[in-house]
């Protein structure tokens, strides 16, 4: 218990910063004219976006024959991309809600941008089922609305309808959660900017926030409630996504392990994407003292944990396919590992199960370049996981006469590229117009690990007193 009494924890924010330093440093990128790097990144991502728009327009005008689908493989690229993007989004909610409930204070430096990532990823994800419908102008048919055909309602027993509700709720709640978190920071920006237009805009969206402590009290309560609601929500969303597959009878899809397997995979891939974005952002926007090695290391540890769960799920699938004695199940797995798409399976295993094991070493976890490369590998691996599950299972089902092959067409690849373009375009715009770090929340953890000596009047006597209080709190906490 000796270290349970240690008073000094590693500070979350490096450098000796005052409260106004935090305001100024986080808001600095919003005042600067964007640099060359930003414009280059923006040019690349908007070009990708326009490529995607062109591809979608073409396939809408021509018809779904532009895809590589056939009678046997009716779900492939679009649905893979959908599950991939939805999974990316889950890390944002994990950071903002679950880590909040677990009182993980390091989340304050990354939660704002992770939540933004969630929203953008869900936008990307939501596009794919709509594109996949083939006639997106009829997408509103999935919504139960009074109509003149009976009224004929949607089938509420269908996982696809559940999915629509899950994604819709997830998007709405994530957006509201993010916006509520932004209100105090928008007020901070409103009060410091001299530009009239900006003052007006920030003033409009900060809803007249004045920092009243009565409002702060309610705000904290709302934040806790939203975190409590978002936690089961995020689990339900990917559970429902997995039911799209698990409730069917295709070997390789029809398994009860899917919900936890998908949720763990979603968090795993999402954290990889958070790391990819954060490692770039901290470098380009000079946030190294806010998003420190400690943050990167913590996220790397979550990757080890969730990567372990994903690996366990792969092994369980393998074991059950043999243990079940069901020859179709067994065939589906053998076909995955050694069939015509074996390369995809082995990319998946090496990226998702083998490569994260290197993170057991502290040297690897604290090497930013290495973690960055690894996060890219995991993103690739998790995309292939969805491809392996969805496409390979479909290509060879019960009847060998109906076996077929699937290869994506250029139009489909351009659509995927377009979704990446949309994601990065939105993220780049976000980094220009909104504070990427939660200013108010960071100020609240500024004294963390510093024996509360941040304020200008912390005399030595007071510091000593605060240390003794700290110890008392700790001992008390331990007794409880």
């Amino acid at each position, binding site marked *: 218990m000796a270290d349970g009494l240690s008073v000094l924890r590693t500070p979350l924010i490096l450098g000796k910063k005052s409260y106004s330093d935090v305001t100024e440093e986080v808001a600095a990128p919003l005042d600067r004219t964007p640099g060359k790097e930003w414009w280059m990144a923006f040019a690349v991502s908007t070009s990708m976006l326009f490529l995607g728009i062109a591809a979608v327009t073409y396939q809408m005008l021509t018809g779904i024959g532009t895809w590589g689908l056939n009678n046997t493989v009716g779900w492939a690229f679009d649905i893979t991309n959908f599950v991939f993007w939805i999974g990316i989004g889950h890390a944002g909610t994990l950071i903002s809600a679950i880590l909040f409930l677990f009182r993980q204070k390091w989340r304050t430096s990354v939660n704002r941008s992770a939540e933004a990532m969630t929203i953008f990823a869900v936008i990307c994800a939501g596009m794919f089922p709509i594109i996949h419908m083939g006639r997106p102008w009829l997408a509103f048919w999935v919504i*139960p609305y009074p109509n003149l055909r009976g*009224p004929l309602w949607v089938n509420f027993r269908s996982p696809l309808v559940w999915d629509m509700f899950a994604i819709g709720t997830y998007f709405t709640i994530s957006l*509201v959660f993010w916006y509520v978190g932004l209100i105090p920071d928008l007020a901070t920006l409103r009060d410091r900017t001299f530009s009239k237009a900006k003052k007006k805009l920030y003033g409009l969206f900060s809803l007249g926030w004045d920092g009243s402590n009565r409002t*702060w009290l309610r705000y904290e*309560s709302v934040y806790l409630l939203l975190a409590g609601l978002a936690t089961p929500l995020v689990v339900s969303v990917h559970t429902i996504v997995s039911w799209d597959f698990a409730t069917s009878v295709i070997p390789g899809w029809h398994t009860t392990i899917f919900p936890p397997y998908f949720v763990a995979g979603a968090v795993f891939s999402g954290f990889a994407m958070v790391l990819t974005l954060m490692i770039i952002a901290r470098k380009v926007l000079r946030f190294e003292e806010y998003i420190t090695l400690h943050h990167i290391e913590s996220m790397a540890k979550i990757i080890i944990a969730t990567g372990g769960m994903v690996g366990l799920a792969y092994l369980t699938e393998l074991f059950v396919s043999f243990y079940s004695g069901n020859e179709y199940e067994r065939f589906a797995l053998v076909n995955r590992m050694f069939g015509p798409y074996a390369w995809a399976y082995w990319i998946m295993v090496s990226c998702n199960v083998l490569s994260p094991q290197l993170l057991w070493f502290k040297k690897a976890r604290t090497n930013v370049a290495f973690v960055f490369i690894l996060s890219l590998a995991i993103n690739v691996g998790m995309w292939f996981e969805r491809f392996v599950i969805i496409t390979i299972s479909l290509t060879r089902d019960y009847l060998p006469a109906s076996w077929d092959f699937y290869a994506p067409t250029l139009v489909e690849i351009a659509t995927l590229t377009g979704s990446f373009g949309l994601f990065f375009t939105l993220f780049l715009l976000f980094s220009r117009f909104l504070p990427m770090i939660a200013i108010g929340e960071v100020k609240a953890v500024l004294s963390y690990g510093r024996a509360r000596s941040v304020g200008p009047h912390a005399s030595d006597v007071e510091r000593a007193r*605060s240390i003794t209080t700290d110890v008392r709190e700790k001992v008390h906490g331990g007794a409880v």
Partner: protein
Amino acid sequence: MSRRLFIAHFEDERDIVEATKAVRAEGHEIRDVYTPFAVHGLDKAMGLKPSRLPLVCLIFGLLGATAKLWFQVWTSAFNWPVNIGGKPLASIPAFVPVTFEITVLFAGLGTVGAFLLISRLRPGRKPAASYERATNDRFVLVIVERDAAFDLERTTALCRRFHCVRVEERLEEEP
């Protein structure tokens, strides 16, 4: 009728909590405290009661759950029943996922809506109070000077004990 407000500015989160406690112990009426972030312990120092928003959340959640469950049973079993795979028309277990989602949606939106309403936050509203740097790095304690007996010197000295950096007085129209 207008009333006088006594306003003290602080620079440290601990100072504001201690000053608030001391001012309250003196029997002053605290109008509000303005801070750049949620300072823990300040609500207790001000003597604020815990928020009742969790109750609002519960009520909206129950409302969402009931409404959605009823809607699914009504559409599937009464308004236009369709036999799907021989399943019962009111197949409650299959209605659980959507009911859950709508519960969360109602509870979340209801709570945030109630929060905005009760805190009078809305687009286009001018901040009710504006204190220099209160959203940046100053902690502002606002006391109502209730009567002629209010001792300016004494209160200023009290705030100075907690390293207050500035005091001022303002007139406010009585709400």
